[in-house]
């Protein structure tokens, strides 16, 4: 552990390796017993076989999305926590994920999603932006955790209410069922097309967040000190918030709500990077990817017939963890 703490490169390498292992494991997991190697080889040679179809149409998009979305959730959690200097900030808890879900639902149900591929992630992005904007306006910086959580509850409630409204006016019970299933959060039955839709927005978001690494480092000493250290606090805060909104918006618009990854991952990894908010960003990306890949494998192994949703599993594990965090940090903020 100590060797890892002193060498950020080693920690990153280890996490990347673990991500690759989980990715391969994920490719090998599924209801059909097929040779993944043969599938990849066939797909590469352009041969259409059962193996190549299963790998390219089912396994690969699923594993890729679990990796990318897990990574996004992890990094966005680390970024928000660094910005608000608060270990309880998380895209789901503070309402950003719900905002993105609302944006995507609106695109779905008014039929915009069929006009252009970019409108669905754009809807998610706008929804996420709106939620973050509310948060920034509602919560003065460096205020206590309670204000943050309360503002999050309010934003979540408004988001949920509007989603419920959309459900209310869903054109058919079937459509309603589809939207509810989608909201529960899953990476099942997605295609490489979904990956292609979300990836550009996510990548832009990652770059924006990574760009703010030194700024997050300086924020360790508060906003005034960061400003005196040469950081344009107002501008960088918007870049950071924009990065979170872009990546979370895109992630939620393809996978629905997958909560608590952004809470658990940075919390576990923070001591390993000596509480450096900058180094935590990349590390949390890989940590999130590993967690979601593993969670998705567990979901597939446990599912017989009716499939468990990934978002349900992360919420079942993450909810109690959130409670534990509150209890542990209670003395610190009450």
């Amino acid at each position: 552990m100590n060797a890892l703490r002193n060498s950020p490169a080693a920690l990153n390498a280890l996490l990347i390796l673990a991500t690759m292992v989980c990715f391969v494991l994920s490719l090998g997991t599924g209801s059909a017993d097929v040779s993944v190697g043969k599938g990849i080889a066939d797909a590469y040679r352009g041969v259409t076989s059962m193996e190549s179809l299963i790998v390219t149409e089912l396994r690969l998009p699923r594993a890729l999305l679990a990796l990318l979305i897990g990574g996004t959730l992890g990094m966005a959690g680390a970024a928000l926590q660094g910005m608000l200097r608060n270990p309880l900030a998380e895209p789901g808890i503070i309402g950003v994920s719900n905002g993105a879900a609302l944006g995507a639902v609106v695109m779905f149900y008014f039929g915009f999603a069929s006009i252009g591929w970019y409108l669905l992630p754009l809807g998610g992005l706008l929804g996420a932006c709106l939620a973050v904007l509310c948060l920034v306006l509602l919560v003065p910086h460096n205020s206590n955790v309670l204000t943050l959580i309360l503002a999050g509850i309010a934003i979540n409630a408004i988001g949920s209410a509007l989603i419920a409204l959309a459900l209310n006016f869903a054109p058919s019970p079937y459509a309603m069922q589809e939207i509810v299933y989608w909201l529960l959060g899953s990476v099942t039955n997605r295609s490489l097309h979904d990956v292609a839709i979300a990836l550009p927005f996510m990548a832009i978001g990652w770059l924006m967040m990574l760009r703010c690494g030194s700024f997050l480092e300086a924020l360790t000493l508060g906003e005034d000190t960061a400003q005196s250290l040469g950081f344009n606090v107002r501008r960088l805060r918007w870049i950071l918030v924009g990065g979170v909104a872009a990546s979370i918006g895109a992630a939620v618009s393809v996978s629905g709500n997958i909560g608590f990854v952004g809470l658990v991952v940075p919390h576990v990894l923070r001591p390993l990077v000596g509480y450096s908010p900058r180094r935590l960003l990349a590390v949390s990306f890989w940590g999130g990817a590993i967690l979601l890949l593993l969670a998705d494998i567990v979901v597939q192994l446990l599912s017989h017939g009716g499939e468990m949703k990934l978002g349900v599993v992360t919420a079942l594990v993450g909810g109690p963890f959130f409670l534990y965090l509150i209890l542990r940090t209670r003395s610190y903020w009450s």
Partner: protein
Amino acid sequence: MNGAALLEGKSLAFSVDGVAILRDISLQVQRGELVGLIGPNGAGKSTLLRLLCGIEPATQGEVFWQDCAFSALSLDARARQIGYLTQGAKAQWPVSVERVVALGRLPHRGLWRDNSAADAAAIEQAMQMAEVTAYRQRIATTLSGGEQTLVMLARIFATQPQLIFADEPVAALDPYHQLHVMELLRAHAQGEHAGVVVLHDLSLAARFCDRLYLLNHGSIFCCGSPAAVLTRDNLRTVYGIDSRIECSAEGVSVTPTQRIREGHP
């Protein structure tokens, strides 16, 4: 005093939502001097400090760094010249002392680059100056208030700034640490360097500062050497207190004796 002052504020004013916080403030900081800002609570000392170090833009007037407008310099260039110690500054994550001090090197670093050898040397030197090397591995948030202030000073020394601004650096410290912090600020303000410090302890201000600015209701009441500023009449008018002022070999010492007006200021 060769040429222009190191830092000069010309007719600074600052207002929030139309309410004037500071009015027509002009002040200079020369090389080699430690300037004290004193005055009652709410006089605008902290706000003035924020204007001077460029955290907040002045509503009117301009701050000059040597001969050029301070606001015309890039944020990075400014950050390399100044160090700003906020009131009750402390780390908000449990990071090690060493890492806190290393943050002082941020203005010297590129966007994606890690610390260089020159940075490491500056960090080492800064920790020695502030005498925090002994607990470099300790977690900054677990230290005592006095030790935390020294760590924050070490962070500022790591930047190697020409001018240090300190906002009530000794407010909650014991006498030992008060003297230690003031000695460090005094030692820094030599040669080409200088310092501006907001203080409530008038005796410390008299002892360590070369010149004092006494603020009252957002404007400068008077300025000059400690002996000229800290007079019974001035303290009566501005603070509303009676005091005993003694001059000795250690400098001027001020002992407030009683309030003279109810509800002042």
